């Protein structure tokens, strides 16, 4: 081979090798960058997914607690049970929510450990701290909550692991929401009525016959109950009170007076609960009675037993 041709061949071969090396290194570096980008994106997507899942757990638990609290408040008031049993009733429903949420996350390739603790209810007062974001999430951004509403609090611990790239995320939330129905307000009013009747009923018994005594008790009771119901109306409560007054002779100059408020129904007109598709006001249904022994030094006339039945409402 002549020397010029050898030089040309060498130059072309060297050029081909150089271009090959350049292309190879370009391709390698692009592959490296692409792998880096893939890993970074995979981590970002996993982290976004886990963060969204924790937010989802917080807001879903919020609205679930709010929904079940509504139903529980309605039934608890209708049975006249102690409002503190609401905490236990809400607590008992938590395993259902946890299991259902865990199952849902498994379908998204997320392994989860969720714990809901300290489910508590307290009477809401205007001084109480409010989490506006959590309230907004259940549709109460500007609601004028009133004293006696139900403040619900709980803590949520959530630990998530992405099953694909093993990213982990852990978070602790404090749940603070308010149910606007004034359950505690209803019980406060009921307790006021009970203490008024208990304290005043002994002054209502006077007269010479069982009928006169029963009638005097009724007049005084109606007066007290009417004043009580008028005050309730101002606070946007509705009340209906049925009573039975029984005066029974107990010897020649004494009698027993039973004042039983057989059907006390106090309704909060300011808030609703949703029961399936129906919006309902919450009504506290309760009853109580007092027994007064009355002795008249001059003797008692009239029938041995008198019973007066009636009702008052605002």
């Amino acid at each position, binding site marked *: 081979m002549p020397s010029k041709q050898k030089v*040309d061949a060498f130059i072309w071969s060297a050029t081909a090798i150089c271009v090959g090396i350049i292309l190879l290194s370009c391709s390698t570096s692009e592959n490296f960058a692409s792998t880096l*980008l*893939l890993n970074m994106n995979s981590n970002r997507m996993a982290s976004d997914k886990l963060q*969204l899942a924790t937010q989802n757990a917080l807001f879903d638990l919020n609205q679930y607690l709010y929904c079940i609290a509504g*139903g529980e408040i309605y039934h608890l008031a209708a049975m006249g049970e102690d409002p503190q049993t609401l905490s236990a009733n809400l607590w008992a429903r938590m395993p259902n929510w946890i299991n*259902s*949420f865990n199952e*849902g996350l498994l379908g998204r390739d997320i392994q989860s450990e969720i714990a809901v603790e300290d489910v508590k209810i307290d009477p809401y007062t205007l001084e109480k701290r409010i989490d506006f974001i959590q309230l907004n999430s259940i549709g109460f951004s500007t609601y004028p909550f009133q004293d006696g509403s139900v403040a619900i609090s709980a803590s949520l611990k959530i630990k998530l692991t992405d099953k694909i790239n093993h990213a982990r995320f852990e978070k602790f939330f404090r749940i603070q929401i308010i149910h606007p129905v004034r359950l505690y307000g209803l019980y406060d009013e009921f307790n006021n009525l009970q203490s008024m009747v208990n304290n005043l009923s002994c002054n209502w018994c006077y007269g010479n016959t069982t009928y006169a005594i029963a009638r005097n008790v009724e007049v005084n009771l109606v007066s007290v109950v009417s004043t009580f119901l008028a005050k309730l109306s101002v606070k946007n409560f509705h009340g209906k009170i049925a009573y039975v007054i029984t005066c029974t002779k107990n010897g020649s100059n004494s009698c027993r007076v039973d004042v039983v408020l057989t059907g006390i129904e106090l309704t909060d007109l300011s808030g609703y609960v949703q029961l399936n598709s129906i919006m309902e006001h919450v009504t506290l249904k309760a009853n109580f009675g007092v027994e007064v022994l009355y002795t008249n030094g001059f003797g008692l006339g009239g029938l041995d037993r008198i019973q007066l039945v009636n009702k008052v409402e605002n």
Partner: protein
Amino acid sequence: MVLTLTDMAAASILTLMIVVSVLVQSLLPGEGLITNEICYRQKVASQILEASMINGCLSKLARLYEAGHGLDSVLNEMSQLCPQNLVCCLKIYVPENNGLIACTGSIHDTLYGESSVLITTLRGKMDLICQVSRR
């Protein structure tokens, strides 16, 4: 220096190789870029769902579902959160019977980002899925 036919052929092949590789690099987006785009769209979908949760849309959906009413109005409200240069599709499935019970919008691209959240109601669970693609 005079180029022979062989030299010219070699030069042409090399030029062709370079042109082809440059074209392939520039015209076809790499896998990394595709996942970058999916990642961005998934992030948009997540943020639409997060904003909806804070706005109370999930709570509204739960109450409407419990009451047996339609959910489209709330899905339309949520779709307003979609950025103008993207399109969003919101769907609600009930996992128990794997049925689609509400849907709004549609996606125009096979390349889309997807996020989903769970809604627990007294009637059962719902899956709210948000898909985001290019307009």
